[in-house]
């Protein structure tokens, strides 16, 4: 399995986790929503960690591009983290509108983010890095 396949699959899994949490919030099932949202958040953060701690540093080291796409990707991860915190607060207050609004923004943010990674960053990584070693190192951090 190469880097693109490995990380793209994680994106799809996170999408599904979110869709389930959103469904529970919309139905007003707050207990279930909290549980499902926690799974989504945990898995998404783990995916970010794999990129930020393993893939991006190696990408920057090998290509020499430090202030490039990886910086933008990190910034978007931060924006996503902020939205997830806002959603967590909304869950505490059982505030459906705020949750769904932040969730919609998060979904579109992540989708365009993932698209850029899947289209450009991951293929470039596969081209220039040792894919097997990368996938193994990311796998050690856990499973999304």
């Amino acid at each position, binding site marked *: 399995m190469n880097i693109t396949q490995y990380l793209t699959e994680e994106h799809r899994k996170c999408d599904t986790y979110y869709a389930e949490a959103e469904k529970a919030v919309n139905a007003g099932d707050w207990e279930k929503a909290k549980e499902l949202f926690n799974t989504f958040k945990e898995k998404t953060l783990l995916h970010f960690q794999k990129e930020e701690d393993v893939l991006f540093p190696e990408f920057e080291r090998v290509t020499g591009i430090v202030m*490039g*796409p990886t910086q933008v990707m990190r910034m978007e991860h931060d924006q996503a983290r902020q939205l997830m915190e806002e959603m967590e607060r909304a869950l505490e207050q059982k505030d459906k509108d705020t949750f769904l609004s932040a969730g919609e923004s998060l979904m579109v943010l992540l989708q365009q983010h993932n698209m850029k990674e899947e*289209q*450009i960053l991951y*293929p470039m990584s596969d081209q220039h890095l040792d894919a097997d070693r990368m996938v193994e190192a990311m796998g050690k951090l856990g499973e999304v």
Partner: protein
Amino acid sequence: MTPQGLQLLYLPPFSIIARFFVTAVFFAFIGSTYLTYQAVKGELLLPPAVHLFTLGFMAMTMIGALFQMLPVVAGVTLERPLELAFAVHVSSLGGVLLLVLGFITGGKASALTGLLLLLASFGGTAAYMLYKLLKAENLRDAPRGFIFALTAFLLGLLTGSSALLTLAGFLKLDYARLFDAHVGFMLWGWTALLVASVSFQVIEMFFVTPPYPRYLTRYLPPAVLALTVLRALIPFVLWDLLLSALFVAYAAVTAHRLSLRRRRVPDPLVYLWYYAVFFLAVSALLYPFKERLFAWFLLSFGLFVLSVISSMMMRIVAFLVWMHLTSQGVPNAPTMFKVIEPSDAWTLFSVHTALIASLVLLVEGFPLFTALFLSAETFLLCCFVLKGVLTYARLRRA
């Protein structure tokens, strides 16, 4: 290192897409007001009304969206985008107004000046975008589809201009054939194909659906362009039947994808997509009978585009307002449903549904209700797009 990757840094300034979208929705409103006026007078002059929608609303939206999508979706940068957008926007705005004025009054000078402005603005940008895309490497199927759509757009401009010059007496060509080729290039090759190519990327993204089958995303764009070229060169009913079948198939696959979406929250913008593919299929089925049913074909095609643009524009504007504000570090930037509220989307959806219901009266020979609902819908669309743009203007960091 391939410089293409670095284009990820570039989020085009919001003012670019904002000016095209605001102008586009105003043209849609002007177009529907004009249709209402015609309905009251009991006449129907197609060229001005059609071009207010196709050039003023559709092309304005699509060119604006391409400014946004080329860097993000295809990793292609346009040089000096702000200056380019300014020039294209101003000259195409003038071009549409003059051309339509020419159609209404029969004034040759106005129509031809408008035509020149449109060739320079829309034609110039389309050619430039096409050139940039052709130079890009490893394009995915969605941006690859843009290549075929932009080619059809240029061919549509060429045949449209030739038709107009023939009509004005400057060329001695077969007007009926040019007109027929122009409609084929512009509606199927450009509009429907661009919508399809964009959907290959965004349906999966926005609604979390399984991806489109590869044979469709790979072969639909070249097949559609080839058929529009063939039917222009060798008029033959088979090409039209094949085009019709391709788009009915695309519509069916899209409806099926949407039905498999994993996000199950009721969403008016999904339902607008269902309307869109339904009317796309209807217009594709009417197309082989266009000699007798031309106005009905245009009407269903128009409803297809209106549904799809309404749905996408509401989402894109809300997202970009939040994205730009938050990237500028504005604290507590409003998230999407606080920019354009779900109730706004539901209102638009209800009026759209009423518009579709009014088609029953239209068949019975009462066009006024349809024209009024169309005006109401495009007015709402203006309000919501403006609401988003003004939210951005109010909160942004200078």
